[in-house]
């Protein structure tokens, strides 16, 4: 569907107003602008594509329903939509908390054996995929206030100022939380990175015997 060029220069708030008034193309343009950020945030927070799509859908339904509650002087529409998304993510977490995954086995022996077998046998692409999965698991296991900043700044690639406006806190708070979150992540990944020396020198056979 062709978007009229005059819509392209409109702000998000104006597009929402036009969309509520019945301009479908304005709604499509607004959806195109916001969907990626909302979907990525929901995906990284819930680790599920289905949940991320559910959140994205509900955010746009709520945007239309609660458009009168948006006050332009209090912040950007993207931040308003992010607030809605965050509430839905919390609801999903609350709904699914009984099914929380068991903590990962990070004992040095297990991790070292895994690392050695990967280094020797698996292709590089699989190791990269495995690393990505481990980092994602580590991010998911962070406390909520650290996870939010890692997802927003590192994974959704927002600036510190944008993340601060989304989370309604100071930029300094974002910086300090991000620093602590990185330290925690590095600590969680440490067993994979530096296996026990005696196991490493013994080789894979040493692990099996």
């Amino acid at each position, binding site marked *: 569907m062709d978007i009229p060029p005059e819509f392209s220069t409109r702000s998000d708030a104006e597009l929402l107003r036009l969309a509520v008034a019945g301009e479908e193309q304005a709604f499509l343009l607004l959806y195109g602008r916001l969907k*990626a950020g909302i979907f990525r945030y929901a995906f990284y927070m819930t680790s599920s594509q289905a949940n*991320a799509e559910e959140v994205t859908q509900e955010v746009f339904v709520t945007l239309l329903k609660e458009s009168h509650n948006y006050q332009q002087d209090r912040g950007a529409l993207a931040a308003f939509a992010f607030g809605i998304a965050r509430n839905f993510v919390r609801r999903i977490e609350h709904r699914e908390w009984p099914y929380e995954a068991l903590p990962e086995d990070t004992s040095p022996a297990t991790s070292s054996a895994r690392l050695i077998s990967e280094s020797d046998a698996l292709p590089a692409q699989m190791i990269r995929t495995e*690393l990505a999965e481990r980092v994602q698991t580590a*991010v998911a296991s962070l406390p909520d206030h650290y996870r939010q900043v*890692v997802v927003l700044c590192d*994974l959704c690639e927002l600036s510190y100022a944008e993340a601060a406006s989304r989370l309604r806190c100071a930029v300094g708070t974002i910086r300090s939380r991000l620093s602590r979150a990185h330290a925690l*992540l*590095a600590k969680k990944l440490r067993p994979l990175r530096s296996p026990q020396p005696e196991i490493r020198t013994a080789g894979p056979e040493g692990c099996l015997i």
Partner: protein
Amino acid sequence: MTCHELRLYFEDPLRMDAEFPREAEHLAHCTECARFVEARHELGTGLRLVCESAPEPSAALEAVVLANYRRRIIGNPPLVRSRTRRWVVCWTAAAAAMVALAAVLLHHPARRLETSNLTMESAQRPMAQPGTSEKSANRVPWTNAASSPKTRLHSARQARRAPQPAATKSPASEDFRSLMYCDALSCGGAMQLIRVQLPSSAAAFEPAAASSDGAIYADVLVGSDGIARGIRVVQ
């Protein structure tokens, strides 16, 4: 350069500097800092991989969002709800159908107890008798409600608004099957008549009751405590 300065420099794991000559000199001498930088580089690599491996929202999502928008703009009909809520509705409907089927199966004529000859009329006699106390006169005359073709649910308020004479003969004794033992104590309250649609599999027990589309309808008498007292398959 001190260790503190170097750690500040490498604070961001996503830093993409390929060369850092000033810091390299320090790293060559300080193993702790070298380990720190290595850890941050690995974390940065992992975060970039996670970032690159993010899926894209499906095309179906856009279609659903657009459908929601169109329905909302046209006239606020019910929105297309999320997958979870649809499942809740489906499962609730399935459970209700199972309960209705179980009620029919449990009270199949072949399994009907001898006590079912105890008619609803005798069981409800204190309620239907004219000239009893004022309280009993205000009760819903469910026998008349059952004979009304257009109403499926009669409330006590409707009965008070348009009081009808108590029936001299209750059709329950002819049509309704007792679903539980009834006496003046257990069936003393007002009754409601609810018409329900049963699964087509219920036609095995009442073949004559099945309509052209295969649906079976039944009238269920429900007491004020919410427990079903009697059922009658609509012919």
